């Protein structure tokens, strides 16, 4: 038996940062993906096709996210806990009906980013 590190090509370099490729899961109770945060923006890519049977909440999410909307805001507007929205989101990502914005928590923010926020707030 080979050592685990020889079997897993993903085991080095960037553990924890990966959004898993489309995974076949049935009857999921917990989200598969990591890296989706409260403030990750969710955007609807396209409407579902006829044969994609979605739950009403998922259709609501698709309608809401025609304007890019953060996970926490989707939860608040749909009246669902964040954990539930994460699971709904997994299906929609599998179907490529939504996209998510790049993770912001990776690494600490740099000075240019902070300056952009400062400039923006000054302009309010």
């Amino acid at each position, binding site marked *: 038996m080979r050592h685990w590190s020889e079997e897993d090509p993903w085991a080095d370099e960037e553990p924890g940062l990966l959004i898993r490729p489309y995974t076949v899961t049935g009857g999921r109770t917990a989200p598969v993906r990591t890296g989706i945060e409260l403030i990750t*923006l969710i955007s609807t890519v396209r409407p579902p096709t006829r044969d994609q049977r979605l739950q009403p909440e998922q259709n609501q999410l698709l309608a809401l996210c025609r304007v890019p909307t953060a996970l926490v805001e989707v939860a*608040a507007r749909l009246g669902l*806990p*964040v954990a539930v929205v994460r699971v709904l989101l997994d299906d929609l990502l599998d179907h490529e009906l939504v996209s998510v914005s790049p993770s912001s928590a990776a690494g600490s923010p740099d000075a240019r980013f902070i300056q952009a926020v*400062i400039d*923006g*707030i000054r*302009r309010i």
Partner: protein
Amino acid sequence: MAFAESDPATALAADAATAKILVAGGFGAGKTTLVGAISETAPLRTEELITEASVGVDDLAGVERKTTTTVAMDFGRITLGPALVVYLFGAPGQDRFWFMWDDLSRGALGAVVLADTRRLESCFPSVDFFEHRGIPFAVGVNCFDGRCEEDPEEIRAALDLAPGIPLVLCDARDTESVKKVLLALLEHVMRGLAAEASTSPTYG
């Protein structure tokens, strides 16, 4: 074209950068009011069902128990352009909710601790939390009705704040006043980054 929008919220790009600022403080200090004063939407609320280990609640030696708690989190949104949006999170500052703050503070730019001079001690736990975790924060002293009779230096001493930590008198209902608090925090964050860059070795 994208930079001259009249309704920034609808112009937000799908891959826009997002930032998070926390608002902590004791019950009734005005956290949601502060969020509402600068958010482009009325403050939104999520009720989160959170499973927490019941540490110190009813200690049954050797028995690992879990309880489910509902925690309300108020937040607001500030779209600063098509490629940048900031979310402000106000959440309870009681000791029993700190497990939630650990999650919330990951990736946050920093925090505002809102102090109410009538109950100054209620923001002590928040100050402790951010100090111990090395999360940059600024203290906003909420002076209701715009009357600030308190001496900022006395408040600073009462909170035992380190010299560099900003303390700003504010009115949590007033947008301009809230802007000042946020800018004080962000400039503090900038100074921290600059200090870090000058003391730590350069890699690569």
